[in-house]
Every structure is written in structure tokens, then in C-alpha cells.
């Protein structure tokens, strides 16, 4: 039956072709007007621009874009390039840190603890730091989940659980972006004074920041490394925030191409940001003795300040004298030893 139908179709097709060929030498007869002669064609439109747009009569004017194959390049970026960039940046940084720790170990306080402290970060500074930091950690995990969750986590926990978790992660990612952005703005404003690069930084960088060997190049309140972290947070944070809001408020700022671009910026800056923050977390915890206290209690040992921020320590000690006034009794006790 179907082969018969196919035969009929073939005959019809052949006849049509025959008619067409016969019609060709006598264009004056039938079909003298080809309505498609001036009509738009897909190929030509796609060659002119990377998308085809027209007019729609439904209220949603954004649906007037008929086709835009640019999504293919974006897909390639998301599924291949980004996983490589992210994987290399984050695992590479972890590897570097592990190797560095094994070789160098914790940077010790060379002159030991003096038992006297000076205030390094006040309550407000620490609050801003930890607000931004806690948001960042959740944003980082929920962000990595979007890129790496499907190949790594989904096979382990199954579709339903993974979807549920990703849904909450998405909400967290969207909502925590606000306190994070506020944190980045406050960090920018409150520490800009100490983070303008100057001559001291050149010397600091030349001497490798004392990371290798037991050198202690002079530094003011923030050394060149910390200034680097500051600008990574300010610029990187600004970029992820801006590109993130473009994605969060679809079509407010740009169309689809803009959102694809925003996602590319958001993702690349995001993974590099995470890699940089791993180094920051390392040096602030197990990487250096006495460093965590700066953001923990807000007070650092005077010897720590002298070793790592000599110029700042001198200034600060000249101004306020060693050790915050509330630590007086303990200071007396240690001095008596």
C-alpha cells in the first residue's frame, strides 16, 4: 500500500518536474511572475545579521526575534570552555596552595607573640567583611552548582534531590546577591584610602612579599598582595554584580545576545574570583600565623603588625600606644612575667 503511494508520489513528482521543464522555454505562459523573486530568504537574512527579526502582533514584542543561532556558541562556551576554565582555575589554585603549604608551611611569627595587641579592623569593618564573605561562599557554591552540578552532583543524588537543591540554590544565589553587592560597595568605600598602589608596593613586590624565604618587606596598612585582593574584590565583585543583575532582570537592559555575553562575563569572572578567594582564605587561615585574628577579634599581635605591616604598625603605635586600652590588665600580667 505504502509502496504504491510512494510510486504515485514519484509519478506525480516526475510529471510536475516534466511540466516545469516544459514551462521553462515559454516563460510568457504560466507562472510568469515568481512571487519569491524579491522575497526574503533565511540564508540571506542570517548572512546579513546573526539573527532574524520581524514584527509580531502579540503583546510580547520580544518574541519578534524569529531566529538567532548564536545560542550555539554560547552552548559551546557553557558546556565545554567554561568547565575547562573553571576546572583549571579552581583545581589549579588548590593544587598550588597545597604544594605551597607543603613546601613553606605556615608563615610563623618570627619574633613570637608579644602578648600585646593593636586594633586592626573595627567592628563595622569586620561585619562588612563577614557579611560579604558569607554571601560569597554561598554564591560561589550555588554558582558552581549551575556549571558543575549536572556532571558531578546529579549522578550521585538523583534527579529529584538535585533539582530541589538547585532550586534553593538558585533562590539563595538571587537573593544573597543584594547583601553581597552592598558588601562590595562598602568594602570599596571603606578601604579605598589604604589601597591606592604606591612606591612601597613596588618594593614589596620586588621582594616577593616575603612569601618565599623569611623576608619582611615594609608595608602600610595593606600590602601589595592585600591591595591586589582588594581590587579583585572591587572590580571582580562589580563585574559579577553588574552581569548578574542583567541575568536576574531579563530584558531590562539587553536582549538575548546581551544576556549570553553577561553570562559569559559572570561565569568567567566568577570562577576566577573563586580561585583568587581560595588564596585569600588560605593566607588568612592556615597560611599565616596570627593573620586570622585581624578579622576574627579585630586585634592583631603587635609583633605580627611589625613583621607584616611595619609602616602601619609604627604609625599606629605612635598614635595610640601599644595595645588597646581594654587589654590593659592582661598586658600588665604578661609584662610582669
Amino acid at each position, binding site marked *: 500500500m505504502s509502496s504504491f503511494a510512494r510510486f504515485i508520489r514519484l509519478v506525480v513528482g516526475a510529471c510536475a518536474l516534466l511540466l516545469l521543464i516544459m514551462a521553462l522555454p515559454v516563460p510568457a505562459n504560466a507562472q510568469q511572475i515568481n512571487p519569491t523573486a524579491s522575497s526574503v530568504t533565511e540564508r540571506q537574512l542570517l548572512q546579513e545579521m546573526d539573527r532574524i527579526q520581524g514584527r509580531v502582533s502579540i503583546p510580547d514584542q520580544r518574541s519578534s526575534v524569529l531566529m538567532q543561532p548564536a545560542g550555539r556558541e554560547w552552548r559551546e562556551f557553557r558546556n565545554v570552555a567554561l568547565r575547562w576554565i573553571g576546572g583549571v582555575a579552581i583545581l589549579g589554585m588548590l593544587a598550588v596552595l597545597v604544594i605551597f603549604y607543603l613546601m613553606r608551611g605556615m608563615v610563623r611569627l618570627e619574633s613570637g607573640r608579644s602578648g600585646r595587641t593593636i586594633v586592626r579592623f573595627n567592628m563595622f569593618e569586620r561585619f562588612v567583611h563577614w557579611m560579604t564573605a558569607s554571601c560569597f561562599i554561598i554564591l560561589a557554591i550555588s554558582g558552581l552548582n549551575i556549571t558543575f552540578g*549536572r556532571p558531578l552532583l546529579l549522578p550521585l543524588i538523583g534527579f529529584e534531590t538535585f533539582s530541589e537543591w538547585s532550586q534553593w540554590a538558585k533562590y539563595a544565589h538571587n537573593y544573597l546577591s543584594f547583601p553581597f553587592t552592598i558588601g562590595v560597595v562598602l568594602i570599596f568605600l571603606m578601604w579605598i584610602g589604604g589601597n591606592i598602589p604606591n612606591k612601597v608596593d613596588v618594593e614589596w613586590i620586588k621582594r616577593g612579599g616575603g612569601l618565599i624565604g623569611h623576608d619582611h618587606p615594609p608595608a602600610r596598612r595593606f600590602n601589595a598582595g592585600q591591595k591586589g585582593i582588594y581590587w579583585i574584590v572591587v572590580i571582580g565583585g562589580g563585574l559579577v554584580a553588574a552581569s548578574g543583575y542583567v541575568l536576574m532582570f531579563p530584558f531590562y537592559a539587553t536582549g538575548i545576545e546581551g544576556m549570553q555575553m553577561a553570562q559569559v562575563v559572570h561565569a568567567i569572572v566568577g570562577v576566577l574570583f573563586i580561585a583568587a578567594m581560595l588564596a585569600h582564605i588560605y593566607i588568612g587561615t592556615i597560611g599565616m600565623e596570627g593573620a586570622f585574628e585581624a578579622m576574627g577579634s579585630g586585634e592583631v599581635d603587635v609583633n605580627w603588625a611589625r613583621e607584616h605591616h611595619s609602616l602601619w604598625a609604627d604609625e599606629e603605635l605612635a598614635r595610640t600606644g601599644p595595645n588597646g586600652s581594654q587589654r590593659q590588665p592582661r598586658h600588665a600580667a604578661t609584662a610582669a612575667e
Partner: protein
Amino acid sequence: MARMKFLCDADRCIECNACVTACKNEHEVPWGINRRRVVTINDGKPGERSVSMACMHCTDAPCAAVCPVNCFYTTADGVVLHSKDLCIGCGYCFYACPFGAPQYPKIGNFGSRGKMDKCTYCAGGPEADGSKEEYEKYGANRLAEGKLPLCAEMCSTKSLLAGDGEIIAQIYKERVMKRGYGSGAWGWKTAYRETIES
């Protein structure tokens, strides 16, 4: 098994929007969402063409490839469907889709997206065929009843064709042969990596 495709013969489309209306009505698609739309290119100028467009149910679908929670699946008929239970409304399929098919109900604050909605080729979703839950989430499942998508079924000029790719391509080829012209199968190159020679 058939490989279901859509084909819009732009030389026949008169931009009546019946396909759009039929789709909205059949599936009770929420306000603000259009699974299908008619785009007119070069409106009012010589060579104007209208194309009815929805999800093309691509081969190696980009939406499915970029979905962070892997909520898409392809049926034995080559129809690309998704699970609204798994969808987290991230918007990634929308960035990847060449046809602007995925739609999101606006729920909650900011630009927050709800579960994605798109053309199902009148084939419902992962729920039991014809069930109430399936209808509420995805609309009618005509394919399970042996019927083709309503948009194409009720197209007044039979511009929009739905069915097995080989058959509708054949129909289109015959038309082109008969009338002597055709502006091509819009979107086929992008969706199926093939065109219909005309």
C-alpha cells in the same frame, strides 16, 4: 518511529495567527506566555514573509544540552519535552534556544522566573498520558490520542505542517515543484542541520 518536525511554508502563511490562538486555547496557556507566534519579516515591504514559529524540537537540542538540572528528554517521536517538576527556572535554555521557544511565567519579585513553559508538540509531559496533572502543567496530549499538533491541524492555508519530518518535507517539495517557488523550510538548517532542496 516517526521523527516529528514542524515546517512553516512561508509562502503560504497569511499571518492570521490562528495557530497562536489555537495553541493558547487548546493548552490553556497562562497569560503572557505564547508557545507559538507568527513573525512577519519585512512587514509592508515587497517580499514580506510571515513565519509561524514555536519550539522546533531540535535534533541534539541546545536547551537540553545546557540545562543545569537535565530536565529535558526526547521522546521516541523526536519530540523535545521537559519536566516542570525538575525545572528550576534558571533561564539557561532561553539563552541557548535559537528560536526563543522557552517562556517563563513571571512569578515572585524581581525578574524571577517560574517553571519554563514551551511548545510540547501537543505531547504533554512526563506525567501519565491524558492525566489531569499532565494537562495542568503541559496542556493537552493530542499525540497520545493519535492526533497531530492543533496549530498545524487547523492552519487555514496549510502553511504550517506537522508530522513525520520525511513526509512533511516531501509535501513541501511537491508544493515547491508544482508552484515553482519556495522560500525554504525556515529554521530547518538551525534545528535539524538539514534543508529541503527546492
